[in-house]
């Protein structure tokens, strides 16, 4: 059907505030009597606090208070504490101070005398797996979601069995398989076997995770920077130690998250805890760039090995994958799970074994970063697909098309249990992209030299799961006829809070000018929505807004029937009015129906609510009850598969073999994201994701001093996000625009693979320019290119990570 709003651009209501500077981020909060909070961060990568001498610090003019580790809740050994007396990474907060000015707070921190006992530390996971290698935490070196905290050491034999450039493969706590990989390799025409390293990199959100808080009348008010306005709240309330109903949360803008602010995090709770100690006095924590680096999480790196079998037509016959994940000092994020899942979706192997070892290190805590695991998968494996294509003499597009899930996902499977996908058109995206890009003609120039510059072309695919179910929607029609869409989706910058709100307006036939989006905090009475992460918002909250709008529609028709007789089925809606189906005569306007809902009360005005909605939604609905016609429902629509976000990217580069510089000449990504809801939004995400991906491929990595465990790449310059001068202009984007059958509007999101397929395509293009040279190390920095082009050995040790 033709939609009025879905598929069309709109001006997001918050965007003008962004260009005028009136948008208020967490650090822009001010209050009378506000004090400034700062933290003393550990100068060591692993230590135990022996004593804290604050005598001199407390004499600093302007000093107000200290907050010590034993004054805050402590998590389990692999958890992420707010303050700690056993720091497990450089920069981890030990003590917080409050002072009248930020300078006084800084001076107080500087005057603290914290006596630390150095403990063994490790920055390379493989070092920790060796016999006698240090454990990042006392008592263990392996953890992860679904993996018990334990000490795991591989045997000397395990290490000796591996060649110099080959990943040793000892015991692995994660192992799953399907099919028969031995049989798969037996029928392979070509087998590719390689080891590889993928660096850790920072999220580098432009806005550090500053926060502010105060207490009033038993409620805690928090200004935070988060991707997820409603989903962040339960965890934040737990960290502060209050019930959800006692949290007043404001998160109208988020200056970049990329997974690093997916929900709540320890520093967000710190001002609230300090404020509590000060009797509710407003507390403001301005996080510095280094503190953001140290505490803002990072993408997990990997050391890995794989063996892939291919039939003569390019079809994968078997895949054997082994990865070691750099988990950081906490349970981190299960990127390792996503490696296995992503490979199984993008390449649909009939036989596969997956093993993983998540290893704790004394490095920056790791969290999800845009395509966590999935995007590393694209970077690690796509160049190997090219290697096999070359050996088989098959075009690289054809190589991917033969393996990719397509045709709507018929027969496509995911993961260990080989579950179904809701839909998939990756094969079609590859075909469409190759045609748009002119792959056949352009790739004929592969390896073309012009002076020191060599031309290269790359293609790659990426995946991320893209939707969930079970969350709530809440809408309200007020007696002035306005539709209020209450949304707990965060404001990360994708504008999906707006594009998904348009689903409710579409269902109710609203003119967009008559819709108000209620968002940004508890004061706007928001429902419990899933967070704005994981490419899921479009799929998940299109469903919640759909069910809430359908509830509102049902109530409108019931009101008409009760007022004008007959059955609700006798009526329909049109142009914000209720009409009689028989003659399309107008019965009443939505405004009149909303007033009737208020008069009728009961479920119509939100006084009686469904039993299955979340506590947060219930509280919000009760707050707006009686102010209009309330539509509220939990999404119980059918969902019996994994909704995938899939992309195919195409890159053209010139690689200067004398300087190692890479000039990206052209770029295209085609998305399989269901029906495109917000075209310019998809364009912006396609290009922005690619820019971020190009940095992942070329410049962004963590580096530690191995002797001291101190980070040496903590700034923008050292783990460099790309700039205006590094990326191409006038790039293209596209979409297959096929509906997902398990979303009522056919919509799916696609934020994450846009980065992964672009970065992987760039890596493939660089290899292509260099005649198929495989680096098997990400990022590919300039000196690696110069060394490869000159036939010189690389300066890094094989498989070493977190170093140059």
């Amino acid at each position, binding site marked *: 059907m033709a939609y009025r709003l879905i598929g069309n651009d709109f001006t*997001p209501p918050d*965007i*003008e505030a962004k*260009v*005028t*500077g009136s948008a208020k981020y967490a650090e*822009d909060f*001010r209050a*009378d009597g*506000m004090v400034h909070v700062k933290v*003393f961060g*550990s*100068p060591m990568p692993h230590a135990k606090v022996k004593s804290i001498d604050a005598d*001199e610090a*407390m*004499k*600093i*003019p*302007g*000093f107000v*208070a200290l907050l010590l580790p034993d004054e805050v809740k402590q998590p389990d050994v692999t958890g992420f504490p707010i303050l700690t007396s056993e720091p497990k990474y*450089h920069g981890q907060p030990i003590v917080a101070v409050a*002072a*009248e*000015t*930020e*300078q006084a707070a*800084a*001076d107080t*921190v*500087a*005057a603290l005398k914290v006596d630390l006992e150095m403990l063994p530390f490790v920055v390379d996971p493989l070092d920790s797996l060796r016999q006698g290698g240090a454990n990042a935490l006392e008592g263990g070196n392996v953890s992860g979601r679904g993996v018990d905290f334990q000490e795991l050491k591989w045997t000397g034999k395990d290490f000796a069995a591996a060649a110099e450039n080959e990943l040793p493969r000892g015991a692995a706590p994660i192992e799953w398989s399907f099919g028969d990989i031995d049989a798969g390799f037996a029928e392979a025409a070509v087998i590719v076997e390689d080891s590889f390293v993928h660096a850790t990199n920072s999220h580098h959100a*432009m806005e*550090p995770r500053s926060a502010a808080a105060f207490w009033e009348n038993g409620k805690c008010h928090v200004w935070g920077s988060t991707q997820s306005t409603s989903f962040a709240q339960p965890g934040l309330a737990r960290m502060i130690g209050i019930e959800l109903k006692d949290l007043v949360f404001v998160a109208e*803008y988020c200056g970049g998250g*990329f997974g690093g602010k997916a929900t709540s995090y320890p520093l967000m709770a710190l001002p609230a805890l300090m404020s509590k100690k000060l009797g509710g*006095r407003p507390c403001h924590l301005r996080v*510095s*760039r*280094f*503190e953001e680096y*140290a505490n803002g999480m990072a993408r997990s790196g990997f050391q890995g090995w794989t063996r892939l079998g291919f039939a003569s037509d390019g079809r994968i016959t078997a895949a054997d994958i082994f990865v070691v994940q750099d988990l950081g000092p906490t349970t981190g994020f299960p990127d390792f799970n996503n490696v296995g899942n992503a490979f199984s979706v993008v390449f649909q192997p009939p036989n596969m074994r997956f093993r993983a070892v998540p290893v704790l290190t004394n490095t920056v805590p790791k969290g999800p970063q845009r395509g966590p695991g999935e995007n590393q998968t694209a970077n690690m494996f796509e160049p190997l697909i090219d290697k096999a294509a070359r050996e088989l003499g098959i075009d690289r597009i054809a190589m991917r098309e033969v393996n990719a899930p397509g045709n709507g996902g018929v027969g496509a499977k995911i993961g260990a249990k080989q579950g179904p996908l809701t839909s998939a058109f990756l094969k079609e995206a590859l075909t469409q992209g190759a045609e748009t890009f002119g792959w056949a003609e352009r790739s004929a120039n592969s390896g073309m030299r012009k002076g020191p510059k060599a031309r290269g072309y790359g293609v790659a695919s990426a995946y991320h799961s893209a939707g969930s179910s079970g969350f709530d929607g809440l809408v309200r029609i007020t007696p002035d006829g306005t539709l209020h869409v209450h949304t707990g989706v965060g404001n*990360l*910058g*994708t504008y999906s809070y707006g594009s998904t709100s348009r689903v409710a307006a579409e269902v109710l036939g609203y003119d967009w000018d008559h819709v108000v989006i209620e968002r940004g905090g508890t004061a706007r009475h928001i429902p419990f929505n899933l967070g704005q992460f994981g490419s899921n918002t479009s799929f998940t909250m299109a469903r919640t807004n759909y069910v809430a709008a359908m509830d509102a529609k049902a109530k409108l028709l019931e009101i008409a029937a009760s007022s004008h007789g007959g059955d609700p089925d006798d009526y329909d809606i049109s142009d914000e009015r209720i009409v009689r189906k028989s003659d399309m005569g107008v019965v009443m306007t939505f405004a009149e129906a909303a007033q009737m809902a208020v008069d009728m009360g009961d479920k119509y005005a939100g006084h009686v609510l469904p039993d299955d909605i979340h506590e947060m939604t219930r509280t919000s609905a009760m707050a707006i009850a009686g102010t209009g016609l309330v539509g509220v429902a939990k999404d119980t629509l059918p969902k019996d598969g994994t909704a995938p976000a899939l992309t195919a990217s195409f890159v053209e580069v010139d690689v200067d073999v004398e300087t190692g510089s890479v000039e990206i000449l052209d770029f295209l990504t085609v998305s399989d994201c269901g029906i495109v809801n917000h075209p*310019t939004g998809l364009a*912006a995400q396609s*290009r*922005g994701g690619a*820019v*971020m991906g190009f940095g992942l491929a070329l410049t962004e990595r963590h580096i530690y001093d191995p002797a001291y465990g101190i*980070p040496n790449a*903590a*700034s*923008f*310059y050292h783990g460099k996000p790309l700039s*205006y*001068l590094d*990326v191409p*202009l006038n790039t293209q984007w596209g979409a297959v625009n096929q509906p997902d059958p398990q979303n009522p509007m056919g919509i799916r999101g696609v934020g994450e693979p846009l980065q992964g397929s672009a970065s992987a395509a760039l890596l493939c293009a660089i290899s292509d320019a260099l005649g198929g040279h495989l680096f098997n190390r990400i990022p590919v920095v300039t000196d690696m290119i110069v060394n490869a082009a000159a036939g010189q050995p690389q300066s890094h040790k094989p498989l070493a990570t977190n170093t140059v």
Partner: protein
Amino acid sequence: MDASGPYDPTLDYPEGPAIAEIAGGGDIKPWRPLHVTRRNFLRGVVCSGIVIGGSSYLFSAATPARADARGVERMMSLTVNGKTRHVDVAPNETLGYTVRYRLGLTGTKIGCNQAECGACTVMADGRTIYSCSTLTHRMRGKDIVTVEGIAAADGTLHPVQQAFIDELAPQCGFCTPGQVVAGVALLNANPNPTEEEARVAMSGNLCRCGAYEHYLRGVMKAAREV
């Protein structure tokens, strides 16, 4: 060691409620400022957040530096967005801090505080500067324009602002004030830039969301309209 005496940080902020009851009072023992070297000066810049990475724990990144402050006249006249205001400014205070924390102009963002990202970009006498790395006392007599001073007094957006909206250029929006100021400064100086000139002029402003192409389209669109 310089002996110019202790610096009183409570002067840096308007007086709040009495703190004695909260902090427990006690004698104030003055401390001596650090010897003034370039390093110590930089370390002492207000809210610097500067990292001293190194091969030992001595200059730990996790240990903020003490301020060094000298006998500089603190009161100054500062002209921001056409209004001249008298403000009490610490000698080691950055313009970014002054406009955000003293003048309440929070549109200017501090993303890195070390001249890397450009989120703090403002104009001084028409030229773009990183306000996070500019001492406010150096701005005496300058005409400062922040993002709040870009739109017309009646709220009409500048063509660059409107074009950024039209092109859906801002994503998270944190770098946007700096991008707006950089774009406007460019068009003031060169109303008809080539795309390459605009790209170079904007290159001091990072955008982690990667919206460069959309910002640049906005600048070029505005150039056609101014």
